[in-house]
């Protein structure tokens, strides 16, 4: 077995493997056979890589029927959006067929806050897609990512392909990763505006946010996205917590940040990470919030929940 063996994947159930590459040569050596095997088996293949790697692999592979490409730098900028809107969306679009996906969600430019959400995402994949027929290979840039990040990858992937070959991950413990990264969010370093809300003041929550969003330079479409997201979180507080909560808003150099705090508990970590069935009720709002925001961070315990939304101030028009 060579160190870059990324073929011979199972034909049923979820296979979720981490792939540690040292440089672009290694990345290509791993990607090409994985993609080729999928196409040869007639499996729809999705390659979701950050911008630079996407261009590299796409140039090397070329186009083929059944082969799809996604810029993870855009579609996965919010790690919480990757499961419902990239992975599940692709699997759902091919009902009754086994699918094959390359998903690079962690890269060296990720902020610490984003990385925590990435680790949670990788841990949740195992439970979220357990019943789905999908082969998911997650590249990790071992040359640039920190040791701790690679250790987390061993804990979130049952199998690792790396310099030692392809082997079961001895440290596989996704629940530990979920616990480790469910941490209180760091206190804001900028002046914070606060507003308490209840059912009959939901419209004021939107007015409040809108003023700050416009000042922060968000364009009109993004302002509405934020209104929808904040209204949804506040409405969830009203429904599930003690009838209301507190909204905090502040602006950093890069982001407008809104945080909703209440005394409810989101006990199921998969809430908002999967698009619910058409008749499903729970989690419909949070999954939309993940699609609308540039970063969603969450900390929830029996004592209360805080959800923090980031909207980048300098993104181009959609």
């Amino acid at each position, binding site marked *: 077995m060579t160190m870059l063996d990324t073929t011979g994947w199972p034909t049923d159930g979820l296979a979720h493997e981490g792939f540690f590459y040292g440089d672009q040569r290694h990345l290509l050596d791993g990607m090409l056979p994985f993609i080729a095997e999928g196409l040869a088996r007639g499996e729809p293949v999705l390659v979701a890589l950050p911008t630079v790697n996407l261009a590299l692999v796409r140039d090397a592979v070329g186009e083929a029927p059944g082969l799809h490409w996604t810029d993870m730098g855009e579609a996965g900028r919010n790690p919480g959006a990757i499961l419902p809107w990239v992975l599940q969306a692709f699997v759902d679009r091919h009902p009754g067929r086994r699918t094959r996906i390359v998903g690079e969600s962690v890269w060296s430019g990720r902020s610490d806050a984003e990385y925590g959400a990435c680790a949670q995402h990788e841990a949740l994949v195992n439970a979220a897609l357990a019943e789905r027929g999908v082969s998911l290979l997650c590249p990790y840039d071992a040359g640039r990512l920190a040791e701790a990040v690679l250790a987390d990858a061993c804990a979130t992937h049952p199998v690792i392909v790396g310099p030692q070959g392809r082997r079961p991950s001895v440290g596989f413990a996704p629940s530990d990763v979920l616990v480790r990264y469910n941490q209180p969010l760091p206190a804001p370093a900028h002046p914070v505006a606060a507003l308490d809300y209840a059912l009959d003041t939901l419209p004021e929550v939107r007015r409040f946010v809108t003023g700050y969003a416009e000042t922060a330079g968000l364009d009109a479409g993004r302002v509405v996205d934020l209104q929808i997201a904040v*209204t949804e979180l506040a409405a969830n507080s009203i429904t599930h917590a003690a009838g209301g909560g507190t909204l905090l808003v502040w602006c950093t150099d890069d982001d407008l940040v809104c945080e909703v705090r209440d005394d409810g508990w989101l006990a199921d970590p998969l809430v908002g990470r999967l698009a619910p069935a058409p008749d499903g009720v729970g989690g419909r709002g949070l999954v939309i919030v993940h699609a609308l925001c540039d970063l969603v961070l969450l900390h929830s315990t029996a004592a209360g929940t805080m959800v923090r939304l980031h909207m980048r101030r300098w993104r181009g028009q959609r």
Partner: protein
Amino acid sequence: MGVVDQVRLGDHACWTYDERTEGLDAVGRFVTAGLRLGHRILCFLDALTPDAVLADLAARGVPTGSALADGRLRLIPAGGSHRPQGGWDRPRMVAAIAAETARAGHPGYAALRLVADMAWALRAGTPVAELQRYESQVDALVSGGRVAALCLYDRRVCSDEQIRAVAAAHTATAGPDAGRRRTPLLRAYRTTDPCGLRLVGEVDRSNGDAFSAMLSDVAGCAPSGRPAVLDVSELAFADVRAAYALLDLGAVPPSDRVRLVGCRPALRRLLDLVGQGSGMETVGDPA
């Protein structure tokens, strides 16, 4: 000036109060405005008694003698014909309101202002689901634009949860402490050619049930084979639930039961997202 002065034809407002005098004040203002505008006024009363309402109007210097004499102002006490046993009787109550709203605004009849003092219903242990059903039916009767309804609930006899559930079946919710909002959150105007609704304002969890009630009403109004038309060009905000309600109603292609007119880009994108999340539509290719 308070929110109650902003209730207009087509509005179905939920008014909550903590003190009996606040409830009487709301009724007094609502009736006074109605008399000034030449509306017919019908009040189904209970704890806020006819005598107390008349005393409040007298204190405002509002003459009521001729309006009472010619039936423009009717104050129905508890035990009136809409619920002769004094208990909960939804079909009879809705029928009583429907009989009045059917005539409202037609030639020879003025618009109608309806007051419903509802505190007794919760006090009597009526299930909230029943009250929601009742308020949704009232919603459909009011949304034609020839009737304004003011429903009063006493916060002291119900839990916040009950108030929230009942309030969501109204297009607007207010109380003495909600003076910051000057107009109802959502207004609906019935259109006849094409058959449908024009929606003005905002939808969120606070009035979402009323919105859903309006939607199911409009879906049934169009002649068979032709879609009802929902003009959302003045719908300034719709939340995720509202988007799901539109999706369930068949307002998203390929369904054509309801046609949306004037859909803003933000609402279109939200509808795409909820459709995609429900596996209904695939919007764009991941490529």
